[in-house]
């Protein structure tokens, strides 16, 4: 009995040591991307409190699946987890919420705005922010990952789990929408 518990102790000690190292490695590789994770969560949830919840939950998941990450891009990996966590959170929160598909978005007026417009020049941060917040989620995440995180179409496709062509069309349509909204607001001003 005592031999067994001594063995357990040794195992526990080793586990603690390796967990400790895991934790340090996790901190080194993942925590530097906390700003990117929070930025994405904040744009998806559109408020501070929910964004923090999503990042916390995502970090727990990240730590759980952490092993063997070293050969991968930890930022993209973390962003993918943040995104998935967000969608889970969204479904739990409002199970009946309709999932906006690309097809439904086709109805939206995405005509190229008159390039002569000066609306964009006038676009200050607040206008741009509210225009971005009004975009459908799929468009918003594509814009955040591309413009703020500087990710490639391929990287975004991996994170959002869609073909590269879909990323391309989402980005293009998102930008047309933003231009249309900004032009509209600019005219109203």
């Amino acid at each position, binding site marked *: 009995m005592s031999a067994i518990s001594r063995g357990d102790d040794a195992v526990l000690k080793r586990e*603690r040591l390796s967990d400790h190292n895991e934790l340090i490695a996790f*901190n080194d590789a993942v925590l530097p991307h906390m700003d990117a994770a929070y*930025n994405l969560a904040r744009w998806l949830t559109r408020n501070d409190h929910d964004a*923090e919840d999503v990042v916390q939950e995502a970090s727990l998941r990240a*730590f759980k699946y952490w092993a063997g990450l070293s050969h991968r891009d930890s930022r993209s990996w973390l962003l993918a987890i943040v995104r998935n966590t967000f969608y889970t959170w969204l479904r739990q929160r409002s199970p009946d919420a309709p999932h906006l598909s690309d097809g439904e978005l086709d109805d939206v007026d995405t005509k190229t*705005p008159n*390039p002569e*417009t000066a609306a964009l020049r006038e676009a200050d941060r607040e206008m*741009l922010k509210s225009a971005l917040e009004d975009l459908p989620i799929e468009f918003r995440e594509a814009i955040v990952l591309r413009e703020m995180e500087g990710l490639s*179409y391929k990287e975004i496709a991996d994170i959002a789990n869609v073909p590269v062509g879909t990323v391309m069309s989402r980005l293009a349509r998102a930008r047309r929408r933003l231009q249309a909204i900004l032009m509209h607001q600019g005219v109203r001003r």
Partner: protein
Amino acid sequence: MTCKETQNLLDAYADGELDWSSELAIESHLQGCPPCSRVFASLKLLVSALQRGTLRFNAPQHLKSLVLSGIERANPVVRHSFADWRWVAFAASIVVIAALSGLLATRVANPSVETQLLGDIVSSHVRSMMADHLTDVSSSDTHNVKPWFADKLDYSPPARDLSLQGFPLLGGRIDYLQDRPVAALVYQRNRHLINLFVWPANESTQKSRLVLRGYNLIHWEKSGMTYWLISDLNPEELTQCARLLKE
């Protein structure tokens, strides 16, 4: 290439995601087509406004510690290590380590113990940057920091402020290295934190500078004390800091 075809590919063109032949085709179309050029200019304006950085949300300061304590609660096995972290908690990148006795010096002579010590120094440094509070005694005034240590250790680590030289002293804390309390002094250089660990010892590792897990470490001995300086600061400035501390 028609205007419609061009405009369909304009976003991918702006993002540098096209193959070179499409890229060339669009380039030459844009040169000869003012309307498409204007559409492109408008797109570039939007993209640069989005990329300007003013739209980014940065994680609040407390989020990292919330994340860490969340992991701790969910993973009881790692609680042990986190508890240690808390205990030593404070943020820093310059640390002076002070060890207590000749016993440690003997252990340092053993290579595997030395490796372990180096690992512990880096870990302490990383922990100190992630934890919630920066220092146990937070002051740039040497006359506050020294007596604080004197109450808690049986030796007095040299606590010098280097504000004038560009390395302000943020404060100190007691850290645990290899199961014994050591003095840790925290300095700052721009946005980099530096930990200086100090303890009395007569002999120690031969290596005087090394890079471990991306951190720069500098080690020296003086008047019976062992010093370890660690930071993510570049080697040149860290060396300058070490030189000032040795004076």
